[in-house]
């Protein structure tokens, strides 16, 4: 139970993907203009992250290296294999959603093609196969269940920050901003305040 809570807290607050690790900034700055699209993007990223880790983690640990065969070790090809799995997964997911539920496709399907080249998805796949004891606590041993849980809650943390940012940007539309600060610069300065707020959790946990 302790590990369960530690993983959730680390994924959502202390090691939030946007504010602490700075993964997935492109959709964070690009798709956070209104709350509806931010929520759609966040949910799409969360789903893809969880499924991607559920596929890549076993592939990396049980298929790309077989302990009984000493010559079967292709773990150095992880980047190529992972990006291929993610790209085909996104394509498949898009086709399935379009077939099953057109209304869900209208709400979040348009964000799916953008996710292939999202740092957050490849980032979480790379993260869970590496050493995570620095993030969650010493003596932590990763397994399939923890990996998927971490990916799922990282996605939820991503969605949380996207929603906060979209709310702030909707308010920002009513403000007068200097000509050269308008657009990206003022969004980044706003984002910096969200980061400061999230820094506080590092001291609490």
């Amino acid at each position, binding site marked *: 139970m302790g590990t369960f809570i530690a993983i959730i807290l680390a994924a959502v607050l202390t090691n939030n993907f946007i504010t602490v690790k700075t*993964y997935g900034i492109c959709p964070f700055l690009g798709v956070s203009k209104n709350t509806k699209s931010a929520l759609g993007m966040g949910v799409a990223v969360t789903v893809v992250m969880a499924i991607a880790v559920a596929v890549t983690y076993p592939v990396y640990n049980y298929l790309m290296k077989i302990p009984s065969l000493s010559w079967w070790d292709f773990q150095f090809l992880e980047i190529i294999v992972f*990006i291929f799995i993610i790209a085909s997964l996104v394509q498949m997911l898009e086709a399935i959603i379009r077939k099953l539920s057109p209304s869900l496709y209208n709400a979040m399907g348009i964000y799916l093609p953008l996710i*292939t080249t999202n740092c957050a998805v490849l980032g979480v796949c790379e993260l869970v196969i590496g050493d995570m004891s620095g993030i969650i606590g010493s003596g932590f041993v990763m397994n399939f269940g923890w990996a998927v849980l971490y990916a799922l809650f990282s996605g939820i943390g991503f969605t949380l920050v996207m929603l906060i940012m979209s709310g702030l940007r909707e308010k920002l539309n009513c403000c007068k901003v200097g000509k050269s600060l308008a657009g990206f610069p003022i969004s980044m*300065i706003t984002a910096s305040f969200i*980061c*400061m707020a999230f820094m506080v959790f590092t001291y609490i946990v």
Partner: protein
Amino acid sequence: MMKNKYGKIAMDGLIFNNPTFMLVLGTCPTLGLISSASSAAGMGLTVVVILTLSNILISAFRKIIPNEVRIPAYIVIIATLVTLARMVMQKFIPDLYDSLGGFLALIVVNCIILGRAEAFANKHTVLESAVDGLSTGLGFTAALTIMGVVCEFLGSGSLFGAKIMDFSIGLFATPAGSFIIYGLSIALFTYVLGTITRYRRVKSLKLSRENLLDGGALAEASAPAAPAAAEIKEAE
């Protein structure tokens, strides 16, 4: 004329289409690494190598790769290059390999590389693509290094890891400080570039007006000749 073309590509990559300040691409490694100038510069130089090679390869294969599967093909080329770069760096420059951390693998999904492949390399010759990759990469490196120097100095009072002043503002060693520095840098860059462009436009406007005046004077001078020409025509 030829030199001029490559000069234009290089200036576009370095300044007018600077990937960091003008296009705002590749933001994840930028924000993650500018708290240290040396890792920012290392990231920039890695991207220069990978971007130049991927532009050359994609441009060389642009007639072979079918249009429908071009994006997966580009991603495979880029992923192979990143895997190679990662192995070389792990073997020969382990310090830089450690300081880049997860961002080294994430070069695969860096929008700059795929963006240049899609926007430039699949329409231009190998040499032009190489120049474009080199200059865009150097524009990225320059932007990252400048922000890295500012951010590292404010965050820890040091420059490329060497301590020069005994002060530090802890905020600038975190992503919050990186966001502020990046935002203000974009604002400053667009302001300076806007001012220069406006100044040049005013100058060229003045120049063209002078030309017009000169042209007017010429027209007046040649005005008496016109009736003469008409007379000749009548005579014919």
